[in-house]
């Protein structure tokens, strides 16, 4: 009846996950009860859960990423404490628990923090920057988000029901095969990634189509803001790389469920093929994450330097070069696996070559700042912090791209320090910069600068204190994923790293405080003009938060930095705005398709993990039926009448006019 599921799946003997799970469960229940009692449920359902508005979906992606960042961060804290205390002792985490924690930490941070964060920002901003009213496929967008949430849900269920993988974040066989991982941990891992992978692929297709097909009048490719370019590149990579992940995990699942021998040691399986395939996805994946961050930095640096982006075309070229070359470097993740010198040499050289377009970008940002009137607001701090941090991460990356050096450093703490250096210093700093930069656009009030700057400085210094010691420990020969160790020389560095983790935690608390303080002071921080940073691209041309239709008229773009030009023209021509003729606007109707589909996908995923076959069929039929009902819908749009559009738009125009005339007077 319930497959492999019974009471032994609940880890009653392990207090840490049980207590953590109970606390989370109580918190969720409390929030749910509060929502129901206060009568917010209809609002949540109509305005958020069933929303197909790209801005709302973007916000929900970022919310999911933030919550999961706390979960992944707690794992990180536990690991740092474990390694600080587990010198010549067992520490406080039993080995099988420690293994689950580092596996969950990696999986969550990449798939459920970094990915939703950047996809959320792209969703929120790209249609606004392109001057359009929504993404290409609004309902599909909602489906993509909810499927990602399903994956996150399954990973978190594994905390209390059953176990998570103990295999590391990429579940290499034969360890992840049935004979060495007979439990449900790897199944939790694989099914949550399969389901959220569908969501990611859908989001990728959606955003590629949006950038290629929906641009406002005059928005040529070479007038698109840099963030749109990096979005295009990143989503092209999603569309071409994620199918590899899906196929690879599908083969692993066939091995585990139906006795296939793709990646087993016996019967002609080849475990090295798994390494090869998963990294053919895995390396483009890091560029999927970091390219949008590069786009965010481009926007932020140009806005806060008050200058157009230096070398726009070289930036476009560098982005697309990274997009292509990222598919030529994957072997550098397994130099040590036995390829010959010519293979290693060529992939090593390709890995070093990819640093060149990245270097071009760094110089472009520096030259954008050069001679500019720089304002060090919080987003700009994150951007400058990124440049300093990322250069070190990039340099150690070029170092491990040299095969002989990699033979020494492979799987050491040096490598751990390197990829945290680029992922935290690149992706996470970028996500925070984008969060601070676009928050006023999404919610209509700015974030508190004092707490924001405190969060930056604590996170920045915390990062350096945590990860520089790991480079040194790696040089001293410490390998990654050690549950305990007996080498005295490593101990001081682990203690320093744990101290750094404490500083990082203060940074996270500052970030939460910033949100709380800003929400309480939202009237004082209100952004009435829609353009709090003196921005350059079209998202600042509409109000904050933007109306559901984004723009009353499709903006007419005449050059790069579209909104900057508009402001300049408005100042010169003393604003003889001819009163525009407002028209009815058709917008897509909200749809519960995404939520219902993900609900059935969650049931199906959970049932697959526990081999509850009747429930698998039930979930599958439910998800398919949802799709059929959606495909046969009759009304997919509603009309916002012209008077309503006019009313909303006039308020915004008034505010904006007063802003421009004020700026003109100064």
């Amino acid at each position, binding site marked *: 009846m319930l497959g492999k599921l019974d009471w032994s799946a609940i880890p009653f003997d392990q207090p840490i996950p049980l207590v953590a799970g109970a606390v989370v469960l109580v918190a969720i229940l409390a929030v749910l009860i509060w929502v129901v009692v206060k009568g917010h449920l209809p609002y949540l359902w109509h305005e958020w859960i069933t929303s197909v508005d790209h801005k709302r979906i973007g916000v929900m992606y970022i919310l999911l990423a933030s919550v999961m960042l706390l979960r992944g961060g707690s794992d990180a804290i536990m690991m740092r404490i474990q390694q600080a205390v587990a010198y010549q002792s067992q520490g406080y985490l039993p080995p099988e628990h420690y293994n689950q924690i580092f596996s969950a930490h990696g999986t969550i941070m990449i798939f459920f923090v970094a990915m939703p964060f950047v996809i959320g920002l792209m969703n929120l901003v790209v249609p606004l920057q392109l001057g359009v009213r929504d993404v290409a496929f*609004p309902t599909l967008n909602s489906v993509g988000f909810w499927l990602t949430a399903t994956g996150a849900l399954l990973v978190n269920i594994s905390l209390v029901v059953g176990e998570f993988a103990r295999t590391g974040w990429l579940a290499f066989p034969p360890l992840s095969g049935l004979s060495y991982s007979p439990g449900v941990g790897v199944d939790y891992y694989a099914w949550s990634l399969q389901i959220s992978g569908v969501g990611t692929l859908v989001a990728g297709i959606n955003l590629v189509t949006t950038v290629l097909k929906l*641009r*406002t*009048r005059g928005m*040529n490719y070479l007038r698109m803001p840099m963030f749109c370019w990096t979005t295009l590149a990143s989503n092209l990579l999603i569309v071409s790389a994620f199918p590899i992940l899906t196929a690879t995990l599908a083969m692993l699942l066939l091995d585990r469920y139906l006795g296939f021998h793709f990646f087993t040691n016996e019967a002609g399986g080849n475990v090295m093929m798994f390494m*090869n395939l998963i990294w*053919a996805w895995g390396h483009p994946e890091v560029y999927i994450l970091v390219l949008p961050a590069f786009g965010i930095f481009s926007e932020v640096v140009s806005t806060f330097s008050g200058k157009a982006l230096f070398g726009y075309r070289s930036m476009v070229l560098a982005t697309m070069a990274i997009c292509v070359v990222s*598919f030529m470097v994957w072997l550098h993740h397994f130099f040590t696996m*036995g390829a*010959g010198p010519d293979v290693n040499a060529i992939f090593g050289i390709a890995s070093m070559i990819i640093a060149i377009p990245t270097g071009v970008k760094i110089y472009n940002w520096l030259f954008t700042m050069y001679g500019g009137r720089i304002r060090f607001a919080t987003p700009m701090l994150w951007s400058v912090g990124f440049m300093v941090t990322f250069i070190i991460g990039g340099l150690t990356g070029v170092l491990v791209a040299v095969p002989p050096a990699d033979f020494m450093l492979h799987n050491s703490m040096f490598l751990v320090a390197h990829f945290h250096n680029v992922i935290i210093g690149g992706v996470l700093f970028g996500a925070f910069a984008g969060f601070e930069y676009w928050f006023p656009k999404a919610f209509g009030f700015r974030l508190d600068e004092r707490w924001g700057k405190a969060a930056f400085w604590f996170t920045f210094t915390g990062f350096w204190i945590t990860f520089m010691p790991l480079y040194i420990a790696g040089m001293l020969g410490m390998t990654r994923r050690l549950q305990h160790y007996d080498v005295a020389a490593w101990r001081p560095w682990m203690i320093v790293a744990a101290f750094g983790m404490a500083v990082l935690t203060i940074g996270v608390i500052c970030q939460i405080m910033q949100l709380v303080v800003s929400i309480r002071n939202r009237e004082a921080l209100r952004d009435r003009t829609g353009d709090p940073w003196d921005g350059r691209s079209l998202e600042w041309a509409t109000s904050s938060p933007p109306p559901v239709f984004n723009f009353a008229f499709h903006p007419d773009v005449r050059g790069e930095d579209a909104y900057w030009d508009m402001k300049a023209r408005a100042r010169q021509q003393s604003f003889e705005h001819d009163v525009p003729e407002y028209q009815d606007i058709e917008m897509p109707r909200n749809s519960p398709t995404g939520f219902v589909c993900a609900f059935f996908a969650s049931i199906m995923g959970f049932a697959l993990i526990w081999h509850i076959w009747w429930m698998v069929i039930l979930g599958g039929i439910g998800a398919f039926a949802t799709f059929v009902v959606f495909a046969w819908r009759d009304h997919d749009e509603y009309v916002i009448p012209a008077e309503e559009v006019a009313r909303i738009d006039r308020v915004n125009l008034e505010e904006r006019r007063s802003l421009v005339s004020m700026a003109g007077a100064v």
Partner: protein
Amino acid sequence: MSDQTHIPAGHDLAPGEEEQHSVGERILGYVVGLVLALLLTATSFFIAGTDLVWQPSIPVALIVLAIAQMGVHLVFFLHITTGPDNTNNVLALAFGLLVVFLVVGGTVWIMSHLNGNMPPMDQIMMRQ
């Protein structure tokens, strides 16, 4: 979004969107495609079993027929043409082909190395 006021920046069209032709022409296009596809399939099956041609040429012939089949599908069913309204689709196809070439070619190359240098234990034993 069926927002008709919306003018895309280029004149690039999605597959299936370019049909300004009448229904008859479109059906004709699909019929021609179907006939060609069937013809190529039938030829492949015929070649595979025949002894009318020089035997070692059969695999080559099958590969050629398979590529022709892909071409027919791309042109008649997926509407990939070389017209100026189709740049995106051609570029997307080229990028897809490049990625497939890199991943498949790279994999074959890498795996042949790994298999040569790191054979399973029983094969190492046999060599010694």
